């Protein structure tokens, strides 16, 4: 199965408005259910036993709370709404229900109850099992003749067994991360409480954690290299058989294994930095100030600094001066245009014969009933070559305005003339005859 698109998954979760809101009493109730199911090998709980158990939990968590049975009813409903409890009898109203913890509840409680951090033993066991599984998968891949063989002998075990084992290692890695954070806080707490007397315990804790991480990293480095080699062989066989699904599934497992190996290296590096830092702190600060007087004196120094100010001295070499190369000052002439005679004498140009026809064309258009400039111009220009249309339009306008009374609105409309020109239109009154 290809991994789901994160955007779609997130959109779906947002659309469903998923949320979890568990109170302390709810978590304690779930933990009590998990422990009882584990101890008594129960697959489900009757409603009455749920209520009894809730009352017991309530006595511990909120002693003196009123009406515990009613609270139990609400708690059960709340946990069902949040998919922590599921009713499994399917009897509806016929009789009291039977409930079981969901996978979600099991995961939540596992986080609080299970001590699942990575240890040398657990990691060796997991990597050993993983190695034998991968060897079996490789043997199956070598024997596989058909797509079905690949699906059942390679893809299935890769997804389920190998996937679970690798996820198990990752889960324990996260456990170890949380444990390391606790170690850091524990170191700080120990020094805070006992200062100099805590030095030996701090160093012991540091050494233990560093040794554990070193061992784990060593196992991871050695075994992950082996896993990747086996997986690459499986991938090559899948590629030869043209089985894209198995090839992709193997690639995903390889990436997962790489991530596990990278975790080991990264954590060891970070811890190494931290280890050095704490050692220096112990050496430079704790051992030199066993009575922890320095902090108090420094605090007093800060508070009294404004009454007795002092300042630390530091070196300050001026920057090296880089002199620019010497430039001889140049008198730049002002920017001017070259002088030239732009006044040319008017030349006499004979009017074209075509344009000479314009007055007659105008008169003819008006006498044929044209009453506005656009119509007159259209008729005149139709008889004139296109290259003279612009000039002829001017002539037409001038002749029309000179010979007949014209009238124009305040906002004169634009009219198209022969699809090439646009003019502001006005009307003429041909009734008065040419002036």
């Amino acid at each position, binding site marked *: 199965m290809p991994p789901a698109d994160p955007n779609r998954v997130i959109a779906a979760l947002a659309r469903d408005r998923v949320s979890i809101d568990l109170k302390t009493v709810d978590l304690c109730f779930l933990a009590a259910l998990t422990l009882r199911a584990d101890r008594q090998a129960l697959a489900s709980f009757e409603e009455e036993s749920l209520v009894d158990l809730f009352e017991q939990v309530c006595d511990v968590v909120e002693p003196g709370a009123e009406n515990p049975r009613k609270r139990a009813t609400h708690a059960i409903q709340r946990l069902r709404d949040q998919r922590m409890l599921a009713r499994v009898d399917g009897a509806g109203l016929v009789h009291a229900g039977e409930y079981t913890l969901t996978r979600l509840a099991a995961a939540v409680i596992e986080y609080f109850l299970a001590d699942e951090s990575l240890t040398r033993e657990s990691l060796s066991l997991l990597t050993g099992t993983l190695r034998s599984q991968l060897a079996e998968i490789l043997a199956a891949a070598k024997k596989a003749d058909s797509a079905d063989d690949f699906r059942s002998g390679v893809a299935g075990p890769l997804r389920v067994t190998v996937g679970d084992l690798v996820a198990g290692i990752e889960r324990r890695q996260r456990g170890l991360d949380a444990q390391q954070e606790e170690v*850091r*806080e524990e*170191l*700080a707490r120990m*020094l*805070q409480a006992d*200062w100099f007397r805590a030095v030996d315990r701090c160093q012991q804790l540091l050494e233990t954690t560093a040794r554990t991480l070193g061992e784990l990293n060593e196992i991871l480095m050695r075994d992950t290299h082996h896993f990747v080699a086996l997986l690459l062989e499986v991938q090559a066989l899948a590629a030869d058989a043209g089985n894209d699904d198995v090839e992709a599934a193997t690639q995903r497992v390889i990436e997962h294994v790489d991530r596990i190996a990278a975790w080991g290296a990264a954590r060891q590096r970070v811890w190494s*930095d*931290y280890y050095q*830092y*704490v050692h*220096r*702190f112990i050496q*430079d*600060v704790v051992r030199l*100030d066993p009575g922890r007087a*320095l*902090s108090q*004196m*420094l*605090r*007093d*120094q*800060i*508070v009294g*600094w*404004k009454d*007795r*100010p*002092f*300042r*630390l*001295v*530091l*070196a*300050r*070499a*001026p920057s090296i001066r880089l002199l620019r190369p010497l430039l001889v000052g140049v008198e730049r002439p002002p920017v001017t245009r070259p002088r030239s005679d732009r006044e040319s004498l008017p030349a006499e140009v004979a009017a074209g014969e075509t344009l000479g026809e314009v007055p007659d064309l105008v008169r003819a258009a008006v006498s044929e009933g044209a009453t506005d400039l656009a119509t007159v111009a259209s008729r005149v220009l139709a008889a004139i070559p296109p290259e003279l249309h612009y000039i002829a339009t001017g002539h037409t306008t001038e002749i029309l305005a000179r010979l007949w009374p014209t009238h124009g609105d305040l906002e004169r409309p634009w009219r198209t003339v022969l699809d090439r020109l646009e003019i502001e239109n006005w009307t003429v009154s041909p009734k008065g005859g040419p002036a």
Partner: protein
Amino acid sequence: MTGSSFPTLLEALGDDEFPGVDLALRRGRHIGREDGPAYEFLVEALDHLEPFYRRFGCELVQRSDGFFFLLPSGDALGQRHLSAGEMLVGQTLALLYLDPATLAQGGRIARRLLLERLSGLIGAESLFRTLNPRRRKFDERVAAETVRTQVSEALRGLSALGFVDLEGDDLLRLRPALLRFADPVRGLSDPVRGLEQLVARGEAVLAEAQKDEDSAAEDEEAAR
């Protein structure tokens, strides 16, 4: 026979690390273990570089806390003094460096914690007046903003000098050089004597002397 891995000064000066280290030291930067190769170079070349810098009228100081810096003893190299803001912020960071709570974060603290500790120790109004001695009017909102700005400026300055590393907008990584701010109270039960010794060694100046120098510099500038 020296413990240096460089047989001669010439070879030390010819090392690739030298130009960067030299410029940083001359600009007042403290070079610590966190600086990796630069620090290792100084450890290796110390025997040659100590007399080398002495000729420039300054001393290459190595501290057991794990850092080097250049201390000018004459006028040849030029010297500066930290500002009031840098001093207050530096001292508070040194206090946080000594706090075991900082250990859990590997020597990193949030900027917010610095401001909280600073105002907790000195008080908001007193802090504002110490950083702005010429401003008489105190408005809480304006003062808070001014102090935040001045603390940021001081942090930038201290970061350039190798006292602290700025990691992102909010995180500060404290460096051992901050212990210089605790020098007056280190090793002696009498802080006044400790400060006097520091001044005598030329590692610190009293602010009165600083004031005189500042006004002399201002007069000199006005006369130009």
